[in-house]
């Protein structure tokens, strides 16, 4: 990936095609932020590839004036893997949704994460199947009434980031469509991470699942229901930043800062896997008695070797040891004879 010296603007990364998401869809906001981030970082357009599967979010590549593949359902992780092996210099962005990544493509996703290709994954989670017009998804809450679950869903939903942690992801973050500034920060940070960067984006489907994340976006409530993570900073939230999270052993508890000193609070450390796992477990509903605010930001980040580099190193190592392959001697093998 090279950086452009002639600074481009966000608009330069847009194609001239009409964007065909429903008016009011959260995807618009994500598209804009992605274009902005590429412009901010001056990424050269021809070095960028957007790859998606199937679903509303997967139309994304058509709107980016970069290279792109709108592929088949769930398979984008496998496509980007092969692409990255073929050309490790590309900046590859994988666009997926909750159905695409976690249902039909679940297997590919976990293997992408454990192999740790240097790829940015944006998982648009709207907790519904939009393109097929409103069936419940693997992230829909239990009891969700949809076209395919008229009596309410009986599926237990995934906590997507817990799944990613289980697959040994090296970068795990969450942001939301309604907070463009935060999204931009996270996208910048994800793009900077060497390895598979998993960014879950809460995205509102205003047609089939409007308000799915209202608990975390409603202006009146969000201060109490969300927790913004900053590396090295204490976990503080609340209307007047008057609440904090403290660890009692491995148990997180909410404390009032009027009676507890900030010094006693949990300090966020992106490199701490155990704490990240606990944080990812903050997944309860505001109506639950043991509710903990939903975290946004970077949960976990770790440097680990990336697959494509390891592969290239092996090729280089063998070539150094055996010399560059000679086709004629390969064809002749070691037991040839002449007639």
């Amino acid at each position, binding site marked *: 990936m090279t950086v452009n010296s002639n600074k481009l603007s966000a608009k330069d990364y847009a*194609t001239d*095609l009409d964007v065909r998401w429903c008016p009011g869809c959260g995807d618009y906001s994500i598209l804009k932020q992605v274009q902005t981030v590429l412009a901010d970082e001056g990424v050269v*357009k*021809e*070095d*960028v*590839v*957007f*790859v998606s599967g*199937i679903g509303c979010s997967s139309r994304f*590549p*058509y709107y*980016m*004036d*970069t*290279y*792109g*593949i*709108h*592929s*088949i359902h769930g*398979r984008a*992780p*496998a*496509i*980007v*893997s*092969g*692409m*990255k*092996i*073929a*050309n490790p*210099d*590309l900046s590859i962005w994988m666009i997926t949704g909750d159905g695409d990544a976690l249902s039909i493509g679940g*297997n*590919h996703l976990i*293997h992408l994460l454990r192999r740790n290709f240097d790829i940015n994954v944006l998982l648009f989670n709207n907790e519904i199947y939009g393109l097929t017009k409103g069936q419940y998804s693997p992230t829909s809450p239990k009891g969700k009434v949809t076209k395919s679950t008229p009596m309410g869903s009986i599926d237990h939903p995934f906590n997507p980031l817990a799944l990613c942690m289980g697959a040994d992801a090296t970068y795990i973050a969450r942001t939301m469509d309604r907070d463009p500034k935060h999204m931009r920060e996270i996208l910048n940070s994800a793009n900077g991470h060497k390895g598979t960067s998993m960014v879950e984006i809460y995205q509102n489907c205003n047609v089939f699942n409007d308000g799915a994340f209202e608990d975390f976006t409603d202006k009146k409530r969000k201060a109490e229901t969300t927790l913004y993570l900053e590396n090295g900073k204490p976990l503080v939230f609340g209307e007047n930043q008057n609440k904090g999270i403290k660890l009692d052993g491995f148990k997180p508890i909410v404390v009032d800062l009027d009676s507890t000193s900030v010094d006693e609070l949990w300090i966020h450390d992106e490199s701490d896997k155990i704490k990240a796992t606990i944080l990812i477990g903050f997944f309860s509903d505001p109506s639950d008695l043991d509710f903990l605010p939903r975290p946004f930001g970077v949960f976990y980040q770790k440097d680990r070797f990336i697959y494509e580099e390891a*592969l290239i190193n*092996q*090729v280089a190592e*063998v*070539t150094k*040891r*055996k*010399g*560059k*392959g000679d*086709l*004629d001697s*390969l*064809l*002749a*093998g070691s*037991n*040839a*004879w*002449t*007639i």
Partner: protein
Amino acid sequence: MNKTLEQKKEVTILFAGDSGDGIQLTGNQFSDTTALFGNDVRTFPDFPAEIRAPQGTVAGVSGFQLQFGSSDLYSPGDKADVLVVMNSAALKANLHNLKSSGIVIANSAGFDKKNLKLSGYGDENPLHTISEKEFRIHEIDITKLTRTALVDSGLGTKEVDRSKNMFVLGFLYWMYNRSLATTESFIKSKFKTKKHLIDANIKVLKAGYHFGDTSETFTSRYDVKPADLPKGNYRSIMGNQATALGLVAASQKSGLELLYASYPITPASDILHELAKHKNFGVKTFQAEDEIAAACAAVGASFAGNLAITASSGPGIALKGETIGLSVILELPLVIINVQRGGPSTGLPTKTEQSDLLQALYGRNGEAQTVVIAAKSPSDCFDKAYQACKIAVEHMTPVMLLTDGYMANGSEPWAFPKSADLPEIINHKTDKINSDKGYLPYLRDENLVRSWAVPGTKDLQHRVGGLEKDFLTGNVSYDPDNHEKMVKVRAAKIAKISDFIAEIELEAGTIDADVLVLGWGSTFGAIKTAVKDLSEEGYKVAHAHLTFINPMPRNLGAMLKSFKKVLIPELNDAQMVHVIRSKYLIDAIPFNKIKGLPFSIEEIKAKILETLPS
């Protein structure tokens, strides 16, 4: 003592034993040695799907048949002249494959009470009841002789017993007057630094050889002179290995880096194993999490400009179907190799069949044609793998290469080419804007082939996808006329490839023959030999063999129509017959075998004779 030397034109040997007895290794070593001596050789390994099936049982028997001779051979032989059995189960499973008055060489230690019971012979030792008129039985206590040879080796009984296949090999080298050198150097390279194992195995190999020399039981040795093969440089090669080398050669000649993505499956995995050894050719192998991922990784690599290959066997190809469809609509080069095995479903993983032909032609949703080509023998896998890559890259299309378990595991001498003599492979990569409207990814040349702009190329950014696309821009299009046009143009692009492939010619016989035997794939050897034999007997029979199944050679229809009768032998339930009938309205006669086994020459001959006018 004096031993007589008997001349033989060709000999078929069948090695059989428990799947842990090293039968495959023994067979391969004998083949390599005798090929190096100058014989023509064809082999047919036949083993159970289980890695170590229950010892001593008929189900656990592993076999390796080979035919070698002093003239051209095309098949591993029908019935064996010599049957080598390591235990009673091996005899039970294979005695029917021995010619009458053939030789049985039996490890008598494998005929003890326990083995006889496990193999179902009961109390009676068949070696003592088989009529000497029918077969010539030689009992050797191979286990005991091996143990005696290694009594001072310091090895444990298990390790000692494991080398008894070397005794067999040594003995057969004596019987056919072959040098031990090839196997000695194989042993050295296999055990590398483990000198005690090298010494032990070579000692047993020699013990077997000397046993033949000194034992009074054996009075005859056999002489099979080198074959009069065409001049050239030869090596012995197995089908899967030839496929792998064909891919490496195509990568080197095209200048495109090779990405091979696959998921382990029998009998295709050996292609992956072979390629993984050749990283110094810039070969990148990727063992994906599943069949679908393997195909998708290949598509991703192809989009990024690599020579991308995926391979599997029937059930794996079924899983790749949707991705192959994607590569059809994207119009990206992709080679898909199907090493066919018995189906449906898991079927017969280690047995051969040709029953994925219709899957290759039609096994995708929508109008989704790919090129389909079939190799006909182990060494032909090299040519066809090379050709598959060439067509995929030159015509921007997926190409399905059909091989099968029979040729994949079989071996033969191969007159390998010089790399300089391999045909050029020209790709369609571009760095130029091709119209005044900007870069049009689906603008086609005179052969209906689009250009290949890979990521990283300035100003050629474009998006492709599985949705139907506009004829020029590649943008999503739901226009009814455009869809029909695109379906037709993708099909026409494939059809046009027939201009680039050779016309089909008769392998044998003439145009006025009473019957044409039309084959495809690994039935080649049996058909070729059957037609040759019958022609020598004065029958008017012709043989043609199809490599290109889609598109078919442009003269095929005319050729078929010039014969009164067309017989199509296939290892399936008449799939090619179905294709030929519907394409050319010819009432081709099916001849089918669906037993997981190749045709014997006799079977084909009998059917031809039945077809001929009386």
